[in-house]
């Protein structure tokens, strides 16, 4: 956070989020969510590699096509 914003927030009686909540959030992110994201990114890249050679389009075979 930039100092200007921090100073502004502190001037408004901002208080810190208690550490235990942040720790809980971080643990869930690190142990569950980030591995899921990593797996999803890997899976997307694998599927993209497969689909790159799909011949998705062709020229019209008739004017009615």
């Amino acid at each position, binding site marked *: 956070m930039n100092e200007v914003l921090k100073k502004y927030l502190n001037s408004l009686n901002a208080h810190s989020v208690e550490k235990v909540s942040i720790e809980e959030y971080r643990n869930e992110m690190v142990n569950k969510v980030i591995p899921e994201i990593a797996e999803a990114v890997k899976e997307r890249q694998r599927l993209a590699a497969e689909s790159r050679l799909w011949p998705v389009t062709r020229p019209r075979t008739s*004017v009615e096509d």
Partner: protein
Amino acid sequence: MNMYRWVSIGSVSDYDELLSLLDSEFDPQKIVPRLKDAISTAVRGVLLEYNYIDKDYRSTFYNFYSKKGRTYRSDCIRLHFFDETVSFNESLLDLSSGDGRLEDHYFGYMVLRPTMVATIGRSILSPNIRKDARGFVIQSQHRVHLLGHRLHLWGFPSMDQHTDIAVCAHVACWSILRHYSERYPQHRELLVHDITMMAHQFDPGGLVPSNGLEINQAERVFQQAGTYPLIVTKTSKMPERFYRQLLAYLESGFPLFVAMHDRGHAVAAIGHSRSSLPITTTSTSSTHAWNQLEAVVVVDDNHLPYTVVPNSGAAAGNYSLSDFDSFIVPLPEKVFYPAEAVDRQSITLGNLLSKFMPMPVGGDLVVRYFVTTLAALRQYMRINQSQLGQVLVNSVMQLQAAQFVWVVEYASLDQWTDGVISARAVLDATASPYDPYPTWFAHGHNEAIFFDRSKADGQALIVPLGRPTAVSIGRMEQNLRPVVARK
């Protein structure tokens, strides 16, 4: 012969006059039924502009049609569409409207190419005159010069495929990239010939007939055009995640190149339509905004633009959203945090927020997310200053963040129906997918949490917003424009 001809449209049958005014090279027998079928009765006059030089057709004429044994003309005809207040004076060669604001009564143009087959060329039509078009559509403002007037209109580019040198996938790429060059000054204009050549891994020695296109060729076109394409493919295991990402990127204002592998067809997805019925769910877990979608709006080169593809059943193109099996989103540089990461992170972030602000829980929670720029977010905050309160507005104005941000909105089922939210989070679109703290800040009705991302240990400050308590916080409808049907 006159350069301009006016056709008054009192009823649908008046389009038949075009049959005698258009040479056979422009295939009026096919054009007139398409206009009758797809254009609303708001159009009450069509101005024909003969001998029009169209840059996109000329790019294919110079590089392909002029090399053929059959003689092709080099000129096109442009059809301009107006409402009932506009009239044309043939002796003065001028258009006039009752209020002197011609562009308020202009619905766009359609170029006709002298190619005999698939003759609809570069077209910019307002979605407001397309029968059945509805919902929200990505649009940019286009400038049109006509009879000494400079007219502006909102729309999305479209054309028919050429059938030989350019197939539907080239046209989908062209539509998207022409939108980019009109919308964003850093993207240069690419003509049909350029797009066709960019699809090749090497120069085959000129423009040659195409046998079709593979996804990697479309990806190459977007790469060479200076975008950062991301391919997302549907799996039978979790198809809903595919559609959530599709909606997220669409709502971000990125038109999508959509492939239908089984149908051998590609279209540009440019908008969506939400159902008028509220979301109903028996699930105990959260719902995504996708669940209220009744249709996606596409530019399909077999139809006039703004075709509505329904969630289920078949549309004009005889396909539905279940036929979409892959899409390419041409992202700008610096959108590194993908939609699939937001999809998962947003739920965990919602759990954290629920400790500090009232949040819907379980099956009552609806989540929506999209990309916008920090500048657009600040503009939104400025416009909605009285709703959001001075503390939040001042904080966002002083926030140092990257150019692109993900916006995540949390609402209850009832709030979603009313177009309001419980909370909004703003994430760093340049974050790594492995960053545990990708959030810049989040706010509810009474508090905001700002994360100190200069520290590794995730410190955050909560600040009271002091905003008016009885005022709801509206959903951000930021990147798409509503279709306002003109009948």
